[in-house]
């Protein structure tokens, strides 16, 4: 309970009031449509619709403010805390569950996504519940448990496509440890699988019929081993600036020490631990390899569903230590997490902070009706538009109309002069807002630097910069 209160307090005082971020703005924009339009937009945007539908209804009930929308995720996050406690108690013991829930509540990573207007908090909650039912099937496979398992799985696959990875890990575990499961479990799992396939098929058909899924996917690079360890670092220490993050990941040999210290007589791998490790390893491997074989999708937030498993394994891991060492280890991890949370909240250099509110406030105060605001990358129009009430014209480069069907137009260096001419024609100043570099940000900036006189530069948060250019000198205002 105290962990839940702690999370709620941190959220209310520090996280809910933060600036809207790109993904959140997208969620707001999408959930603000009619249900049919919402389904279409979400389908095009590599996601599944459950969260957006819930958000749509939530906003109808509780209002359209950013804080109200974020509180939906906060509810899911806070519910996840007792859920992980119950899962930990089932898998290991009361104390292990309690410690895992404390880690979950202190986690800077979970606090971040527990306050984001995205599906990740719901995704995590459903994963925890689904894992709970999965392990309950082993210990007591009553009909209610099977129904709970099937229901959470169905909700899960409609919350995030990667829920399937968790189910795949369960399948691997099942086939390697079939003897643990009750009789006729294969038949029941087959029935659940059939129901899931049957219920998900309409969505697959719908996405396929639209033929536009993933066309708005942001540019991601294939992952490196650095990304791999950064993800683990973020899971434990949160989002830290490069210097601090380098320090954390450079300490990796400490994991060898921690594992060696757990080598005790009789300290065996419980099957629950194996299961949680399968979840982590299978998911990381699938996403890492998939990023090379299919398309780059290795992003730490996509792997958020492995966080409960990681914390549970960590909590159980310390049980193998002698009592005093275990106590010291538990306290150390908790303190490090709190420190990470504080730094993540307080530091302006926190890499995931996107201060669109501040950049728009600046524009609102300084731009006039003779000016044009040019945004690149185009999809950053979502958060900017949310705060925007300047008389200046708002446009994107490449030029993009969100209400047109089809993907965001690709950047073309050949078309750049013409597009810039179109966007700047007749205006006095151009306010170029650059963020979320998709590989052409520098080209655009160089073009403006070469053709116009830069009269101002402002930096708001990591990778969020504003450049002001004088376009004309023949107006009275310019002469002044």
């Amino acid at each position: 309970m105290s962990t839940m209160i702690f999370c709620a307090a941190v959220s209310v005082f520090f996280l809910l009031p933060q600036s809207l971020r790109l993904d959140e703005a997208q969620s707001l924009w999408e959930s603000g449509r009619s249900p049919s339009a919402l389904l279409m937009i979400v389908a095009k945007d590599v996601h599944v619709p459950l969260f957006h539908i819930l958000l749509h209804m939530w906003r109808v009930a509780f209002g359209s403010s950013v804080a109200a929308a974020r509180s939906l995720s906060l509810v899911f996050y806070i519910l996840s805390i007792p859920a992980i406690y119950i899962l930990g108690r089932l898998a290991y013991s009361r104390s292990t569950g309690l410690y895992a829930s404390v880690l979950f509540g202190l986690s800077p990573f979970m606090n971040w996504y527990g306050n984001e207007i995205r599906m990740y908090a719901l995704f995590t909650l459903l994963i925890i519940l689904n894992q709970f039912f999965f392990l309950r099937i082993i210990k007591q496979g009553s009909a209610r448990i099977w129904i709970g398992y099937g229901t959470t799985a169905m909700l899960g696959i409609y919350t995030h496509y990667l829920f399937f990875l968790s189910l795949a890990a369960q399948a691997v575990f099942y086939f390697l440890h079939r003897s643990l499961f009750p009789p006729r479990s294969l038949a029941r799992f087959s029935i659940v699988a059939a129901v899931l396939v049957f219920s998900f098929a309409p969505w697959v058909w719908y996405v396929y019929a639209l033929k536009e899924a993933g066309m708005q996917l942001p540019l991601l690079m294939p992952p490196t081993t650095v990304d791999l360890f950064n993800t683990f670092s973020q899971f434990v220490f949160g989002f830290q600036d490069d210097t601090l993050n380098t320090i954390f990941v450079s300490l990796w040999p400490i994991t060898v020490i921690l594992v060696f210290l757990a080598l005790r007589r009789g300290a065996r791998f419980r099957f629950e631990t194996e299961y949680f490790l399968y979840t982590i390893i299978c998911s990381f491997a699938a996403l890492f390899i998939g990023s090379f074989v299919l398309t780059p999708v290795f992003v730490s937030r996509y792997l958020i569903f492995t966080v409960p498993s990681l914390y549970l394994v960590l909590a159980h891991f310390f049980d193998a230590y002698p009592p005093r060492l275990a106590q010291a280890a538990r306290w150390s991890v908790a303190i490090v997490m709190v420190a990470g949370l504080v730094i993540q909240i307080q530091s302006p250099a926190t890499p995931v902070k996107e201060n669109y509110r501040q950049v728009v406030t600046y524009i609102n105060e300084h731009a006039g009706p003779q000016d044009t605001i040019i945004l690149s990358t185009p999809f950053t129009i979502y958060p900017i538009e949310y705060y925007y009430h300047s008389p200046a014209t708002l446009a994107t480069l490449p030029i993009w109309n969100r209400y047109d069907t089809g993907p965001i137009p690709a950047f073309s260096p050949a078309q750049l002069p013409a597009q810039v001419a179109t966007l700047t024609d007749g205006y006095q100043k151009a306010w170029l807002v650059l963020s979320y570099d998709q590989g052409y940000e520098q080209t655009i900036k160089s073009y403006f630097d070469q053709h116009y006189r830069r009269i101002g530069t402002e930096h708001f948060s990591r990778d969020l910069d504003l450049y002001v250019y004088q376009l004309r000198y023949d107006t009275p205002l310019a002469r002044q």
Partner: protein
Amino acid sequence: MSDRKHSFLRTESPRVLLAFNAIMAITYFIAITFFFMPGNRILFGFLIAGEAFHLWQVLTFLYTVWDTRHIAPRNTLLRPSVDVYITAAGESIEIMEATVRAAKQMTYPSFKVYILNDGYVAGKKNWRDMETLAARLGVSCITRQIPGGAKAGNINHALSLTRSPLIAIFDADHVPHADFLAKTVPYFVDDKVAFVQTPQFYKNLEKSHLTNGSWEQQELFFGPICKGKNRLNSATLCGTNMVISRAALATVGGMKTDSIAEDFVTGLLMHARGYRSVYVPEVLAEGLATEDLRSYSTQQFRWARGAFDVIFRYNPLFMRGLTGAQRIQYLSSASFYLSGIVVMIDALLPIAFFYTGAVAVQMNSMLLAAIFLPYIFLTFYVIQRVSNAHFTFRSLGFSMGSFSIHTAAFFAALTGRKNDFLVTSKRALEGNFLPIVKWHLFYCALALVGIVVAYDREGVTASLLNNSMWALFNVTIFIPFIYASWPEKANAAVAVQRSAEEALRREDILSPGQLMQTQSSYAD
């Protein structure tokens, strides 16, 4: 306690996992050797040498434990006569008495117990007491008058005076179970069986940090490793708790007296003559672990020195008559003690960085982590699975912490320096054992100062942090060994022993003479 006699023998061989571990080990080695850019050439050479050794250790371990279920044929109706030798060189009378009494009570139709008393030639004050004890208990005592060959010489001398086709051998502190002979002799159904070995269990294992650590080291060896060697006809002759065929022993001229590891070498030579060996995975005798760090170090030095003798003088690679599997097994056992040098090299890599900035490989540390962590974690998971979760941090600490002893033994063997066969004390020695861990303490200091030096040179960098963690890793690994040397711990062990002796004296179990004799054995 009862479970500890059995649980280490409940091994398993998850073959898919073993094969995967082998692939990971080879992949890691190939990656680090061929795909990473060398930094300092000398450090890189040392690193690769160390990694090659680790690869050898991992692969031979996996090969050994691939199948641990082998049971040799036996005939329980076989009942040849047996000479039971209990070797003594100044051990305390009460320890000896317990062993002799237990030996006499073995349930077997035809055997004779002998005390092989080397106290006289070893200059021990209690050598006459052994003869008195033998007379009192109704067993024979063979007291050697002419020295030579240490324990092996003692056994060979007795061989010339006894006649039974089989010889059971126990150290003074190894108390046999009543069914020892009944369970070991049936394996001699095959004339080609040279010896039957059983585990060397320590009944005092829970007495202290050190005894626990010593036994935990043994669990891995007498559990999956010896069971695997059994399959490969490569059981190790351990010098006690064993039965040997007189005929087989005669073909190699008795126990080898020219090696400090007489048992190991004798087993090797009998294998080379085409004889077979059997390991019985059941505790059939219970002995005593060394109770102080000095005795432990002496024992480790002797074992390591013996192993290096095998490499330098009886190298199984070049010995005719051995099978390929036997060559690998003997070489793997003997080379285990080279790990001392490898531990030292690995420990010095971060130190080299601290003081010179030189690194073994120039690479992204995360890439190293990505291939090293899965490999090392899988390897230790496999060891835990195979050993029924009997591999411990403490045993790892004792093995790696013994690097200074093993290194000293290596150079002693390399230079051919003669080392006496020292009987390890069965009682806790008194004194300050900190000098035994002086290199470990020096390493801690060196690392600490080195971190400051490196920080002064380059500030907080990823390399500094990474190397600091490796230094911390080594320090952490050394802690169980350093802890065993701590004066308070050493004194505590002696205090426990003293109070026990006083209790015994109060109950008139020990005479003042026996007590004096007990204390004189500290000087071994």
